[in-house]
């Protein structure tokens, strides 16, 4: 798998010409902030075959400027009234997070892949997700925009069960790619049930309160630091907001925190 071949369907890239065309079309569509040449290289190195690459459910240009959700999933009336933020984001009064961006829709295309990586423990996929997130990083941000990257941590107990922190490995790869250091100072203090086992938004938000703590010091105590949080999926956003809050609590100067997820 790691020696060439599509991570999703396992076949080797047979149709080179077709893949080239698909890569180019993605590079054109995604290169708003970076140059076409750069984006081309980022898309080209994704370990996906032509078919899977073509079907990749990338979130379009029209998104909620807060949480990065695509407008297509929102219904018509919201679009018409010209709002910049989606309903969920408007209902939150104070947001510790500046904003979130996600690269892909969370649908059948990527569900199994994430499951394979997270729960089955196929660490070879870390490489693939690392490349995806690097692409997302350059699509929405610039690498000089952040002082450091922080991966959402796992509870120590869960970590020892699973044997690895899926986002930490991915973060290391992005850090190496874009040359931004990683900090591992965020820790999870509260063990929460799996997302799928919790019912409702409120329960989720409640369970996430004070689930994290920042044990390190701020990078530049006098200046606001710029942090990018990394996670695999943004569902209600409570995890990432809790992380951001934990960081804010320690700091004297309010820092500038964005988050980037693979799925939105």
């Amino acid at each position, binding site marked *: *798998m790691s020696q060439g071949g599509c991570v999703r*369907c396992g*076949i080797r890239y*047979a*149709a080179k010409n077709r893949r080239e065309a698909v890569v180019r079309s993605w590079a054109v569509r995604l290169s708003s902030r970076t140059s076409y040449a750069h984006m081309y290289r980022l898309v080209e190195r994704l370990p996906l075959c032509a078919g899977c690459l073509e079907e990749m459910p990338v979130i379009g240009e029209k998104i909620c400027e807060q949480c990065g959700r695509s407008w297509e999933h929102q219904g018509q009336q919201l679009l018409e009234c010209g709002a910049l933020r989606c309903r969920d984001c408007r209902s939150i009064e104070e947001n510790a997070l500046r904003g979130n961006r996600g690269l892909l829709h969370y649908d059948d295309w990527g569900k199994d892949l994430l499951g394979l990586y997270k729960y*089955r*423990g*196929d*660490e*070879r996929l870390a490489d693939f997700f690392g490349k995806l997130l690097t692409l997302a990083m350059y699509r929405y941000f610039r690498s000089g925009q952040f002082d450091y990257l922080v991966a959402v941590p796992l509870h120590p107990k869960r*970590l*020892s*069960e*699973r*044997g*690895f*922190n899926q986002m930490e490995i991915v973060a290391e790869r992005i850090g190496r790619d874009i040359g931004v250091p990683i900090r591992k100072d965020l820790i999870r203090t509260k063990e929460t049930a799996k997302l799928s086992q919790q019912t409702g938004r409120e329960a989720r938000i409640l369970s996430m309160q004070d689930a994290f703590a920042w044990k390190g010091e701020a990078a530049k105590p006098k200046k606001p630091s710029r942090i990018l949080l990394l996670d695999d999926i943004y569902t209600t956003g409570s995890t990432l907001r809790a992380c951001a809050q934990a960081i804010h609590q320690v700091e004297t100067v309010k820092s500038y925190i964005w988050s980037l997820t693979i799925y939105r």
Partner: protein
Amino acid sequence: MREYLLYVKVGREPVQAYVTPCFRVDQDYWQEQEGSQLYVIGRTPSLAMAFSLRERLNQYLQERQAIQGTVNEQALAGIRRIALTTVREASAVYGTTLSHENTEEKEWFAWSEAKSVKEENSTPIVTSGDKEQSVKDVLAGRALLWEEMERLLQTHGIAVPELPQLLQRMVLSGDAQWLPGVRLHVRKSWLRHSLQLACARCGSGKEKIELTTCHSCGQGCAYCTECLGMGRSKCCTPFLCVPAHTVPSSHAGQAGRLVWSGRYSRDQEVAADRARQFVSSHWRRNAEFLIWAVCGAGKTELLFPSVVAALEQGERVLIATPRKDVVLELAPRIQRVFPEARVIAVHGSSKEKWEECDIAIATTHQVMRFYQRFFLVVLDEVDAFPYHQNPVLYRAVARAVKTGGRLLYLSATPPRYLQKRLVTKQKSLLGRSSYALYSSSHVLLPGRYHGHALPVPQICTVSGLDKLLAAGRVITPLHDMLKASLDAGRQVFVFVPRVEEVPRMLGYLQAVLPEYRDGVAGVHASDPAREEKVMAFREKAVKLMVTTTILERGVTIPGSDVAVVGAQAPVFDEASLVQIAGRVGRSPDDPQGTVLFVQSYRASAPQAAVRQITQMNQLAKQLRDRRKMA
């Protein structure tokens, strides 16, 4: 985080090294048994490292037979030094193998020497006898990873607070065996030391194993990617094998009652009887037997006498087959035939996976979870996917056989190495060699149960096949054959080598056969509508089915013909072409049919397939003639 202790035992036997997760148990056990002296060497959190050390130390101790009987401080120091260097070497080799560009020097494996063990204020275990027995009963005949075992005990409602202690006791008394999920070993060479890794469960080697920094053990670790779907087998996960001892069935004998109204043909009867003899013979000459029966010879039925023979001895039987759909189809069929036996279907998502049984029908992967549990293990379609070019899997599967049990292979196209091992060849007077019809290790059934010969494929070579297809030009032999079959009201399989070619072929066929436009469908492995399409084909709603090799086995459609377009492609090897040709003429009402291999250049596999089929037909004819003369 668990820690493993390494110690050497000095007693009546030669000095040996042991690994234990709870030293207390070992102390008690050896005290009880022989009153031998134990010397602690050290401890490490990495299970694989502990086992690697044990191996190394045993080797060292064997070389130095001198330290027999007593061990003085000097000898112990020597042993500790060996252990330390082994760990350091492993650390270094692990570091270079992992080879991140900018990793700093790091101790991958922790090792701390210990002279004696501080009393861990633990009372000797007081697990009650019947609880111990129930754990033994549940685990008997299984080969499981630690997590799987915990889950299994949980589903059986057995809660043991001191499970490691209990299991260690079983290990010491020889009732169980445990290994690290992935074995680690440093192979030394004058040029470069290298890391040897092997998965204890599926037997995969280094190329399938990935190194990783693990947060469960905090040590250098590795996991197997081959059997990942069944849970991670890692260096730090104990893999526990418990052989089944006692005969389980209380109603021995009754389970073997066969209710089957079908009848064998003469050849089938002879073959089935030979297999039965292999199973029931007590002075065993060999533990393996191959039933080689051509496609459509009625292989499943051939098994019944052998299964009866095993069940009558009060033993358990396992039938392993590569695919889940076959398991689901086979289980009720077997249950009908053996109404008294407990039949379970074992596959990834089955509920009755862990239940007690007389006959288990399992997918190949699930077989890896059994350990010396079954007297008779039948491996169906040994040439198909998971076994194909994966001889290590045989070893893993053979683990399910009890000591002194029997392994029965079943195939229409046995792979070369099985043929070499089990099939003897005979030479005729003219010096031409052909397969023997039977020997002590195999039986060959060259004819179909309805007695008609196998349809022999026609090969036609069309140069520039791909271009002609792309241009939508008529390829005369293919076109004539398809048209003749469809006009006669028959159904046709068209096999193509790759998934991408399914839609292309569909388009082509619709263009050249406009009158059958609507009766054409294509299917491949990841097609969501796969089941429905195959169903439609069975119900004759679809006349012409374009498919990849997924329909090469298991699908029986009466009155069908086959065309393979691109038979030169490497996916079509001899075995798969023979299987494909075997789709045709299976029902007794319609034993004839056409098989056409279209290749773009002359390749060896189609030829070899034709040769094999004609050879089988010849053998079948000889057999018939011989019977007539008798």
